């Protein structure tokens, strides 16, 4: 009898801290209950975990933490369906199940020595935060870092403390914009693309990492293309309904590709020719 690897069996993980990022997004700081497992556990920014919540099944959630800070992981969760709503009701000390890491992760090695441009909208900053944290940890390996982040309103700005901290780092620039201003907001108003003229773009020596709602991704990809970025220099990460996370159940199909196994990180070059919602 072959030894059965626990492909679908989650590992219990305890919630150490719940950070309220905004009214819709919470970041859960977790560590595995099994100490040995927790110590050995590692992952790549861009990968995701299948998160189990009692009686609610599983949902894929990207890491927003960096593997450079081992011992705990961060999963940032936006309230959308039954499982994520149940998770938002969970507190410090509660236990979830985690299975993973699954997916491919961002091509960090290819990015070494290059300038980095991060463009995110809403919860889309979560997977990019994993990369940003990693790059800041290894600051000398990468060039200039520009972060452009769009939210619906100023009170919807998630990861505000992180953004403030990143902005203090050397050669890191953070630009924020909101769809709709609120009293007291003197920053930019408009889509993320409206900030593009203010950022320093250097196609050829810069890699753009993009994550956000489908319509934003579509607008950003086409704008970056117009500004001279090659398809290989534009990296995005996709979100789909998932069940297995390991390339079998096919719920996350995307014109012959599976987001869980072939992605979720794709360069624009890999997406070209596919019929994908995010490309229009």
């Amino acid at each position, binding site marked *: 009898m072959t030894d059965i690897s626990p492909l679908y069996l989650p590992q219990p993980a305890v919630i150490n801290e719940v950070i309220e990022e905004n009214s819709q997004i919470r970041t859960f700081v977790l560590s595995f209950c099994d100490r040995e497992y927790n110590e050995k556990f590692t992952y790549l920014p861009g990968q995701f975990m299948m998160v189990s919540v*009692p009686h609610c099944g599983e949902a894929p959630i990207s890491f927003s933490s960096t593997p450079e800070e081992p011992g705990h992981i961060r999963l940032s969760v936006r309230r959308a369906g039954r499982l994520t709503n149940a998770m938002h009701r969970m507190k410090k000390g509660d236990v979830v199940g985690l299975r993973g890491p699954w997916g491919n992760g961002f091509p960090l090695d290819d990015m070494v020595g290059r300038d980095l441009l991060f463009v995110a909208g809403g919860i889309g900053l979560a997977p990019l935060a994993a990369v940003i944290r990693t790059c800041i940890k290894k600051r000398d390996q990468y060039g200039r870092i520009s972060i452009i982040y769009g939210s619906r309103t100023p009170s919807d700005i998630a990861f505000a403390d992180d953004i403030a901290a990143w902005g203090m780092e050397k050669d890191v620039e953070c630009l924020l914009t909101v769809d709709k201003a609120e009293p007291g907001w003197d920053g930019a108003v408009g889509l993320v693309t409206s900030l593009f003229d203010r950022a320093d773009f250097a196609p050829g020596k810069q890699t753009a990492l993009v994550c956000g709602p489908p319509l934003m991704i579509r607008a950003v990809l086409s704008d970056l293309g117009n500004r001279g970025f090659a398809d290989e220099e534009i990296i995005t990460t996709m979100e789909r309904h998932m*069940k297995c996370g390991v390339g079998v159940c096919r719920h996350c199909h995307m014109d012959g590709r599976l987001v869980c196994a072939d992605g979720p990180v794709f360069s624009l070059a890999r997406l070209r020719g596919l019929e994908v919602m995010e490309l229009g």
Partner: protein
Amino acid sequence: MSDKLILKKDHLTTFLRKLSKEYQLVVPLKNCHGDTLFTVIEDLDSQPPDLVNQPQNSLKEFMLPQQEVLFTYKNSPGDYSFSPATVKPPPTIFFGVRPCDLSAVLYMDVIFLQGRTDPHYLQKRENSVLIGLNCNTSFADCFCNATRHGPFLEYGSDLQFTDLGDRFLVEAGRSRGEEIVRKWGYFFAVAAKEDRARKYQVFLEARGGFARMVHVDQAIKRLREKKVDDSVWHELSLRCQDCGGCAYLCPTCTCFTIIDRPVDNVRGERLRSWDACTFAGFTNMAGGHNPVNAATDAIRQRFMHKLCYDVKDHGRPSCVGCGRCVGICFGGTDIIRFINMACEGI
């Protein structure tokens, strides 16, 4: 397939009886309503296997059950723990498996065992022996000749039977088949030259005997070249009655869903069960956004997967030409209809 042997038809029941002492036996059986189904056989004497009619189910039902428990969980404040499912399937011989259904198992092997091994599939698969039966005559909706999965199987079974009238030609394909032939060697005689010639004759007749002409290759080409008009998808989507019957009966439709079934407040099971990519909810994301347009693209996914993506990824279509979806579909959106629509005007 190496050794060619002969088993007299008169000795088939005796042979199966010997096998049934060591294995659970699954064969096509006609039930009291006249339906032929792959069934665990309890009593060989009451009813012989039905080797005349096409079983309505396929081996998918055994390898990827309609519903199976992946694990059980316990949940109380501060605790949420998981225990693997412990059911172990008995060693099982599947007898009378047609080339289409056998090819389907080989396809499932690729899906579930290549890359990350699916433990639940592996457990059943490694406990199974597949005895194939070549098709001398095709059934009403078959077109395995066009998908190149039949009517005779070239490789993949443990033992492969060909009906030569009063006897079967038996070829051992894999080591498990050879073991069986060795262990019960006294059932078999070495095939004569005429037997082999006869097999070839039967094959030629079978190949020429298909009632339907289905242009699978043409459809594959047109899909690859993106020449299938949007109006085809639109009409198929309108007609599809969203019953999922095609996917459930299809021996290679392996898409599944995973759900939690609470047993009580503190315990539950995680189940996986069959799903169908033609359902709108298959791709619907939490919050209601759906990346697939249900009005046109859900049914497109079904045919693209079978006839385009799998050809690209695995070298041949995952439609094995069994024709079951043709019989079950009541909207008129089965794969033959699609292929005919896709090839219209060529």
